[in-house]
C-alpha cells in the first residue's frame, strides 16, 4: 500500500469509527447508570423462585454491555489500525512497508485494548458483584493475565520496530563514515 493510500484510508477510518465509538460508549454508560441507579436498587428485596431480582437485572445489564463492548472493540480496532498506519508513516522508517505498519498497529491495539477492557471491567465488575463476588475476582485475574500477555506482545512489536530503525540508522552512519574516509584519502 502506498503512503498516500495509507493516509487516505486512515483518515476515512477515523472519520467513520470515532463518532460510532463515542455513541457506543455513551450508550454503554447509560445502560450501566440505569441498571445501577434505578433497576438494581428497586429489585434489591425481591426474588423469583429463590433468585434475587437484582441478580437477574444485573445479568441482563452485563449481557447488553458485553454486546456493546463487542461493537466498541470493533471500532477501536479500526481506529487503532488507522493510528498505527499514521504512526508508521510519520515516525517509522522511510517508505512504510506492510510489516512496519502491522507492528505499529499491533502495538497501538495492544495498549488501547488493555486500557478499554480495564475501564469496562470497572462497569461490569460492579454489576457482577451483585451476582457473585467470586466470579468478579476470577474475571479480574483472567483480565490481568490477558493484559500481561497483550502488553508483552505489544512491547515486542514496538521493540522489533526500534531494532529495525536502529539497524537502519547504524547502516546509514556506517555508509556516511565510509564515504568520509574515502573522500579524505
Amino acid at each position, binding site marked *: 500500500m502506498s503512503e498516500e493510500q495509507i493516509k487516505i484510508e486512515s483518515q*476515512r477510518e477515523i472519520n467513520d469509527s470515532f463518532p460510532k465509538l463515542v455513541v457506543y460508549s455513551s*450508550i454503554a454508560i447509560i445502560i450501566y447508570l*440505569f441498571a445501577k441507579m*434505578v*433497576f438494581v436498587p*428497586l429489585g434489591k428485596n425481591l426474588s*423469583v*423462585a429463590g433468585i434475587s*431480582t437484582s441478580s437477574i437485572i444485573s445479568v441482563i445489564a452485563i*449481557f447488553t454491555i458485553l454486546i456493546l463492548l463487542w461493537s466498541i472493540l470493533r471500532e477501536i480496532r479500526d481506529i487503532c489500525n488507522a493510528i498505527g498506519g499514521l504512526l508508521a508513516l510519520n515516525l517509522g522508517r522511510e517508505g512504510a512497508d506492510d510489516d512496519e505498519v502491522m507492528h505499529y498497529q499491533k502495538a497501538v491495539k495492544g495498549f488501547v485494548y488493555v486500557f478499554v477492557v480495564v475501564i469496562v471491567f470497572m462497569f461490569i465488575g460492579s454489576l457482577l458483584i451483585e451476582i457473585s463476588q467470586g466470579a468478579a475476582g476470577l474475571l479480574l485475574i483472567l483480565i490481568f493475565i490477558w493484559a500481561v500477555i497483550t502488553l508483552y506482545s505489544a512491547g515486542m512489536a514496538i521493540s522489533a520496530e526500534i531494532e529495525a530503525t536502529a539497524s537502519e540508522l547504524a547502516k546509514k552512519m556506517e555508509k556516511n563514515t565510509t564515504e568520509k574516509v574515502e573522500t579524505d584519502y
Partner: protein
Amino acid sequence: MTHKIILIIQIVLLIIVILPFVTYAQLDNCNSTNEYIQNGADVTIIIINNAFYYIGSILEPYVPSELGTASDLLKSCILITGMLLTAIIIMLISWTSSKIVTQWAMEQ
C-alpha cells in the same frame, strides 16, 4: 422514514419506558424538608404498593408457592420486563445511530 426520525421515536420510547421506574425510585428515596411534598411522596408510594398487593391477592391462587408471593413476583416481572425493554431499545438506538454516523461519514 429517515433514520433521524426513527432515532427520535426510539429515544421517546426509551424515556416512556424508563420514566415510571425513575419516578418510583425517586419517590421511594424522597427526603424532602417540605412536609407537604414528603406526605405526597409517601402517599403515592403507599398507593402504588397497595395496588401491587391488591393485584397480587387476585393472582395469589394461580401462582405456585415455590415462586414466592404473587405481589413480589408481579413487581419482579415488571422490573425485569422494564430492564429487558430498556436494553432492547438501547440496542436499537445504537444500531440506528451507527447507521446515521456511517451515512454522515460517507457524505464527508
